[in-house]
């Protein structure tokens, strides 16, 4: 069973509304990744953190998406103004390192539906 906890499992928002989801990484993992998995099951990398610092993020994230991993609190991903195209499964993963050779441990995801 996954030790990465994501809440909520399901999120329904209207267009223009904020959507916020949270992730608690596996204990001892300092690196957190966020991915968007679309209806065709394709993964899109959004952002990753090492502790509280951003390692990498894509341009999309810099505009309507915001994310943080505060100390001693769950990580979060927020969409400021949801669009229909944001409907997807948002997966959080954690790892002991952000390096390219490390296994990522995934949570079950938050399924966002934007009406």
């Amino acid at each position, binding site marked *: 069973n*996954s030790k*990465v906890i994501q809440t909520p499992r399901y999120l329904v928002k209207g267009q223009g509304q904020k959507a916020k989801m949270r992730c608690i990484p596996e204990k001892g993992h300092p*690196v957190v990744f966020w*991915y968007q998995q679309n209806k*065709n*099951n*394709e*993964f899109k*990398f959004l952002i*990753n953190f090492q502790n509280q610092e951003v*390692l*990498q993020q894509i341009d999309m994230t810099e505009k309507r998406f915001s994310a943080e991993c505060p100390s001693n609190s769950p990580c979060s991903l927020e969409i400021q103004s949801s669009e229909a195209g944001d409907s997807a499964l948002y*997966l959080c993963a954690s790892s002991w390192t*952000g*390096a*390219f*050779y*490390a*296994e*990522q*441990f*995934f*949570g*079950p*995801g938050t399924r966002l539906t934007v009406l």
Partner: protein
Amino acid sequence: GDSVTQTEGLVTLTKGLPVMLNCTYQTTYSPFLFWYVQHLNEAPKLLLKSSTDNKRTEHQGFYATLHKSSSSFHLQKSSVQLSDSALYFCALGTGGYKVVFGSGTRLLVSP
């Protein structure tokens, strides 16, 4: 840029038959390849990983060999079971902090 190609979107098989799911990649760096499996409504989890050329790696009856000469890391199993029905993702790590995932292959095993 770096990319991963999985040519089959859907593979349907009868239980007990062998399977091979294709994965090829493109990179100018030294590759690290992964296979992840995602069962319905569950989190993806690692199945196999390798960075060693021409060495077979195995786990839970699945196996794969990284062939750098052909840029391939195909996933195989000699006899599929009903419980193998899932989405299978090939992924490529080439440096830095990012891993590139393929589009996934759905495996459906029937009785």
